[in-house]
């Protein structure tokens, strides 16, 4: 099975090579966790490293702002557009919800650059416009359109993070529609806020199950190490694991003894 590499090497290792081709991936997380950066990096890597054109669909944020933010990571999206490797589409979700809205808005940019990847940032904007209970149906139509076009898609979802728990990914039923879910979240460890990434689900493939720390660097998302010394991170009340507490106490005692 062909893998679609995200371009984030550690994440690709966690995914056992990358996303499955044609899959719909959800990147979920609270505001400011890095969903947009990760999604953009997926498209930029596709365009610059793997020869796969990509379409970025934004609703609220104007492309101008996205171009500017991307430049901070060294990504010149305007140039990629000029080279027919990328398209940034800015529209209203209400248009996509019309009977032939998806085809009318997206067929042209997809065809123009022979796109293989697509990002929708974010599905929450769709939620605001559809009647309660209809989101799942409309999201299904959207994702099936992508699959029919042979696109590997990433959709972002702003999930509320109340205290330590309470993600709304599955409450809306969207979790069942996508093939893979990557969860990004803030964690508080020893009075500092850090960022954690985990793969919650990956249909039809083995994947890493560890909760890993990641950073937003000047080159984009960088996944670092697993939080091996802590437990209970997803509960919002992480604590050092007993073995590490013991090792620390032992080292402290040894230090004291040496000092005597």
């Amino acid at each position, binding site marked *: 099975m062909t893998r679609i590499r995200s371009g984030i090497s550690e994440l690709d290792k966690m995914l056992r090579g990358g996303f499955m081709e044609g899959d719909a991936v959800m990147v979920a997380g609270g505001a400011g966790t890095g969903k947009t950066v990760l999604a953009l990096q997926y498209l930029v890597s596709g365009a610059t490293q793997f020869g796969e054109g990509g379409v970025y669909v934004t609703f609220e944020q104007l492309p101008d702002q996205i171009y500017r933010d991307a430049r901070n990571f060294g990504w010149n999206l305007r140039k990629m557009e000029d080279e027919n490797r990328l398209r940034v589409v800015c529209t209203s979700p209400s*248009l996509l919800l*019309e009977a032939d809205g998806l085809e009318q808005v997206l067929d042209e940019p997809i065809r123009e650059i022979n796109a293989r990847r697509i990002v929708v940032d974010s599905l929450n904007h769709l939620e605001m416009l559809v009647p309660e209970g209809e989101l799942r149906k409309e999201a299904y139509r959207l994702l099936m359109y992508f699959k029919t076009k042979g696109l590997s898609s990433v959709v972002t979802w702003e999930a509320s993070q109340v205290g330590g728990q309470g993600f709304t990914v599955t409450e809306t039923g969207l979790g069942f529609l996508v093939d893979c879910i990557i969860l990004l979240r803030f964690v508080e460890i020893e009075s500092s806020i850090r960022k954690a990434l985990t793969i919650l689900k990956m249909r039809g493939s083995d994947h890493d199950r560890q909760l890993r720390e990641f950073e937003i660097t000047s080159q984009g998302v960088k996944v670092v190490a697993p939080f091996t010394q802590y437990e209970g991170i997803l509960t919002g009340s992480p604590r050092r694991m007993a073995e590490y507490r013991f090792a620390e106490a032992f080292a402290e005692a040894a230090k004291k003894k040496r000092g005597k």
Partner: protein
Amino acid sequence: MSKERELLDRLLSSEVKGELLLLFHRNPGMIDTMENVARRIGREAKTIETDMRDLVDLGLVKTRHIGRFEVFALDRARDKELQDTIANYIRSLKRG
């Protein structure tokens, strides 16, 4: 008056048209309704309609229907053509 000069005058005939030109140039992939385009520059649809129709008339903005909505988008090819025309005109002024 030359055709190029007429075109330039027409493009810069109002503040709203200037704002619309700037918006479409900075966001060439935007495709939206009159109401939403207006909102994106902090205005109401009725205050931009005349200027938007003029941009459509110039061929700079193309329009079509998606379901019950009329939508507007930049015609990138025509935009390039108009930019070249204006640039040539400005160059000729400098030379002259």
